[in-house]
């Protein structure tokens, strides 16, 4: 009897530990739900208990594969390739590949204005908070009729030219992986994070 008691005790402790040490990534049922209400996560915790520690599904992604796909450029410069862009070279590429949508000076349209004019429309100069976003976006999505076709060199040059057109850099200023993240964009100080939190206040 005492032997069994010990076994039950050990099992009991193990169960309590299992319950208390729920994996941190487990989805908790939403707070505030009343009993009897149904929702998508009903029974999920019980189901999760039947899962193995590791599924081991999929294929390992090696460094060379990741390097090919990892194209994003961050405000701190992470992701910028080697290179040097000049506004002068950028002007030539801009005329060939960008002007037909964004206008000869960057504000005539028909598509988005890139350069600030008297209308007050959002532009790189008055609305974009980070200069690195220009590089990221142009390389990612432009030109519209042939996305992803620009070389890193062309992207550097166009980035320099757009910053120059907006009066943010001088024409001879060279854009590199070091200088681009250092550029303080005029609109940056205007940005705040989402301050809406639900509840009665309208924001």
């Amino acid at each position, binding site marked *: 009897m005492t032997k069994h008691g010990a076994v039950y005790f050990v099992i009991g402790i193990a169960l309590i530990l299992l319950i208390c040490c729920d994996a941190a990534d487990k989805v908790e049922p939403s707070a505030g739900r009343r009993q009897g209400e149904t929702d998508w996560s009903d029974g999920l915790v019980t189901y999760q208990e039947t899962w193995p520690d590791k599924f081991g599904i999929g294929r390992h992604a090696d460094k060379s594969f990741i390097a090919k796909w*990892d194209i994003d450029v961050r405000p701190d410069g992470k992701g910028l390739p080697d290179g040097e862009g000049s506004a002068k070279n950028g002007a030539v590429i801009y005329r060939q590949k960008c002007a037909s949508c964004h206008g000869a000076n960057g504000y005539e349209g028909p598509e988005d204005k890139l350069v600030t004019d008297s209308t007050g429309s959002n532009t790189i100069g008055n609305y974009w908070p980070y200069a690195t976003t220009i590089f*990221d976006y142009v390389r990612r*999505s432009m030109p519209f009729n042939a996305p992803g076709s620009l070389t890193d060199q062309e992207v550097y040059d166009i980035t320099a030219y757009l910053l120059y057109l907006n009066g943010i850099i001088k024409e001879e200023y060279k854009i590199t992986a070091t200088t681009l993240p250092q550029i303080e964009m005029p609109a940056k100080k205007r940005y705040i994070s989402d301050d809406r939190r*639900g509840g009665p206040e309208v924001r």
Partner: protein
Amino acid sequence: MSEGKEYLKEIRLLVRWLAVTVAIFLALAVGLVIYQHTSNHVVEPDFDSKITVDPSKVQGKPSSEVGYRSKFDSPKRIATYATASRTPLEDLQGTITPSDLHFERHHAGIPEINPEQHELLIHGLVEKPIRLKLSDLKKYPSVSRICFIECSGNFRYGKREMTPGEVCGLTSQSEWTGVLLSTILRDLGVKPEAKWLLAEGADGALMARSVPLQEALTEAIIAYGQNGEAIRPQQGYPMRLVIPGFEGNTQIKWLRRIEVTDKPVMTREETSKYTEKVKDGKIRMFSLVMDARSIITYPAYPKKIEKGWQELRGIAWSGRGKVAKVLVSTDNGKTWKEAHLQGPVLEKAHTAFKFMWNWDGKPTRVLSKAIDETGYVQPTYNQLVRARESKAGYHFNPVVGWDIEKTGEVYLADVEGI
């Protein structure tokens, strides 16, 4: 005298001929009806002709591989631009949006992706970066969830002749099936410094958004199913991110890469777009959650209503949880009454509301106002303008209403006057 007789004779002849002709026609018609009623001959319903066919007296169409809508009730999306189309909210029943009427928004068209040639790369601040094919994704434990997806730029107004779909048809609801992102990331081992993730699509725009990891880990789904079938190309085939309650743009379609990071990437879509001007000259970014909202879909333009009892209907939703209450007014905001919510009320989901209304035939205005479980009350246009010092932009979710005219015609109410 004889001339008159001749004349009469001719008339008599004419009348006789006419009578015979009518008799023949009658006989033919009766014969045809008798024939149709008695013979086993299959008469194909000819819906294009003006002749009404009694459907209970003929054989219908044979079965088919893919169903179709009745030609008498076949709603269409409202194509606003080449890069967007809207759900005709006024034409739908219940709360599930038929997949082919789910709103569309894309920035470089709809890619055609062969799942055999598509992979999802998950890397960054994880111990084990992986590549997943659609077939791999389907091996994980799956979840299904009904929720709405709404574009954060979902409010248009400016004229009286606008339908609910034209006002805010960039919201749709589906049952999404896929894998919880947390299930996959648990396998890969997330490093402690991880705070954000970047999701990127395989379309021409390589659409990319940064999302806070904590929020994404609780509910985000990498979905491959929509309303019982594969996700449609317009919605991200073969796989997309679904983050219930978040603005549509973050729910990357044609998903090909997730990078776990310590900081947001600050892509163009989360800086120069999908941010809104708020008071004191500030610009608000990462406004990710969709606030509570509602719209009456009946009565609404272009419908015409009749005097008497009718059910006022609409949908309400909140990205912060459940809709707690919908208040409706049928007297231009003088009094508000609680509408009935169709259960089960789901979190972050379109919720149908109804209210029986006896219209007395006098001109009036009907309004609806959603209140969610956080206590947020859907604001008026003027409240939003005051709070933000801005007259438009993303996340504009004002109370809208409909003016009922004496004739029963219904028009969009001027939001600035609500």
